[in-house]
């Protein structure tokens, strides 16, 4: 049984994970906070962003701060599902050898799995990964391998479209957050990133992060305790239901976007899985803020990252997804009133 003092200790630990990661990554405070939230809500994260903004560095810093093993896979066109599971080769004695692939290699020690450029991998690979994400198990060699502490981070390359396989909407829905990592705008941060030599050596940068701040094996039970410790009032429930309705029928909440016919925009609103992910994440935000109840600001803090990739647009508007999704979520936050 986890007691309140434990929760308090874990909260301090969670905040110090953030502090440590910020030693290695500057100018990405929101992304760092949301990744931390996802870790404690036990959700997977789809990272999207410019090239070379430090996605891998953030993840490596997190992996080091939480402890456990880090694994990274590059998505390519010829990558097959088996490549994730096992690795075949001929050894020095000329005998064929089969060894566990990147997914199985670390066993239960795997905490951070980074799939780079997931949209370059074929749908078969994506679906294997999705199963691993949903169930945290993989069948191989006639048995089940489980990695209960794994968090999947996938990166989607937004720049190139050739030889890519866009993630299906069902696949996107399995990620708790879709985080956009942009090049920092603050001139001081930009200057530091370019001129401070400390930021040029990634390994040295990662070494700045204090390792193993948490007991990563307790992360799951702690996440469950966090969920139980934070309550939601009736008014907040109404608010979240309104948000859900608004994601399905924005016109009813007077949500308007320039140049968009709101009646024809939405194919499907957020899924029940999406809304439960929203609440899980919001509870972690409240817990990190030292509260035992949810307030609308908790929900609003994670709504753009949770809802944006979960609303399915009609094909006419799908091409303008990035632009419309941001505007839609911003408008929903503006128009849905609470307490009601």
């Amino acid at each position, binding site marked *: 049984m986890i007691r309140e003092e434990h929760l308090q200790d874990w909260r301090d630990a969670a905040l110090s994970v953030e502090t440590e990661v910020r030693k290695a990554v500057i100018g990405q405070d929101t992304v760092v906070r949301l990744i931390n939230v996802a870790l404690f809500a036990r959700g997977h994260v789809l990272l999207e962003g410019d090239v070379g903004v430090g996605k891998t560095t953030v993840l490596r810093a997190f992996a080091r701060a939480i402890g456990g093993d880090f694994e990274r896979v590059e998505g390519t066109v010829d990558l097959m599902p088996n490549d994730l599971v096992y690795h075949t080769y001929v050894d020095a004695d000329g005998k064929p050898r089969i060894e566990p692939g990147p997914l199985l290699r670390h066993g239960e020690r795997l905490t951070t799995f980074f799939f780079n450029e997931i949209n370059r991998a074929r749908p078969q690979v994506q679906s294997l990964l999705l199963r691993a994400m949903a169930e945290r198990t993989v069948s191989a060699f006639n048995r089940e391998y489980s990695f209960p502490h794994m968090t999947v981070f996938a990166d989607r390359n937004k720049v190139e479209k050739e030889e890519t396989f866009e993630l299906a909407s069902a696949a996107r829905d399995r990620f708790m957050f879709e985080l956009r990592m942009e090049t920092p705008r603050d001139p001081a941060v930009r200057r530091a990133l370019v001129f401070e030599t400390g930021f040029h050596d990634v390994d040295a940068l990662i070494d700045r992060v204090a390792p193993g701040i948490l007991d990563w094996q307790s992360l799951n039970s702690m996440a469950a305790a966090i969920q139980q410790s934070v309550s*939601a*009032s009736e*008014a*907040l429930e109404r608010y979240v239901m309104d948000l859900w309705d608004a994601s399905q029928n924005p016109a009813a909440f007077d949500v308007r976007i320039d140049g968009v016919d709101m009646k024809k925009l939405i194919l499907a609103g957020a899924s029940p899985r999406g809304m439960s992910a929203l609440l899980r994440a919001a509870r972690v935000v409240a817990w990190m803020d030292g*509260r035992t*109840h*949810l*307030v*609308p*600001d908790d929900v*609003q*803090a994670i709504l753009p990252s949770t809802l944006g990739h979960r609303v399915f647009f009609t094909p006419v508007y799908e091409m303008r997804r990035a632009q419309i999704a941001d505007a839609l979520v911003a408008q929903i*936050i*503006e*128009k*849905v*009133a*609470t*307490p*009601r």
Partner: protein
Amino acid sequence: MTLPNRASRPLPLLVCALMFATLATAQTPPAPVTAAATDTISDTISGTAPVAVEAAADGTPPAAAPDLEPTPAAAPQGRQAQVDQPRAYGHTLGDLLTQRVLLEINGQPVDLGKPPAPGRVGVWLERRPTRIESDGEGRRWLVIEHQLINAPQALTALTLPALDIATSGGLLGVPAWPFSAAPLTPRNAFAQGALEALQPDRAAPAVDTASIRRQIALWGALCIATLLGWAGWLGWRSWRAGRNQPFARALRELNALRGRGNDAPDAWQALHRAFDRTAGRSVQPASLSHLFERAPHYAPLRADIERFYAQSATIFFGEGKPADTLPLHSFARRLRSIEKRHEA
């Protein structure tokens, strides 16, 4: 001649009469003048203070009596001057009689010494300031103008006084000049039947204005009705807008909830909706800055507004009612007064 002293007659009539007299001066045929007007002129003259009459040309002080006539028979002592005399007949009230005296003695030009003084000359005449004119041959003439300032009741013979004018060459004599003055109109023209007294002006025939009046009344009423309707509509619109303003509405809702206590959730929600409408979006503690950006006039109440949001969060999302809740009624009234001030 009897001139009743009625100096209290109204001034406008006098002005009219004087204008008329000026017209008459322009040698137009005598126009009919009402008895009243004539009376007024006479009255005015008789009502004046005693007038100094310039006596003969020897410079002796004028007599003080107002009705003293200049002696018409008195011959001037100086040398007979060449004088252009005015017409002797057909003068009426207001006419100017102009004498032009050649400033020469024995064919020699002379300079004017002391000109005849302007002012009242007897009952009938007023002398204007004299002036000197030159003619085409370079000769200089002294111009003496007398205005007839009284109206006789019947045709009367009067005299321009004889004058002695002092010049550098001695006295220059201007002889007296008799002239006749006629009344503007007789008192009784025919003295028979209805033709006795002076007749009033014939009334101008009245044009029938009834239909014009009706039209003016109709269109005026329509115009006023339109303006009233317009003003009423504007007033009603601003009244309704005022009623619909966020905090006006919240205050009404709060008043309706009065019986249910200050801290009914509906009361808090009413104020939340008012803040949302003021900010044009849903406002939460984290987005309060939007409210003050959009409506900076609420900034003086910032502390209370923040307290309201903190307490509301406790009530709706947290552990329940906080210890000392904000008095919502007075809070809403303060917000409403700011809203009203800002609207004006």
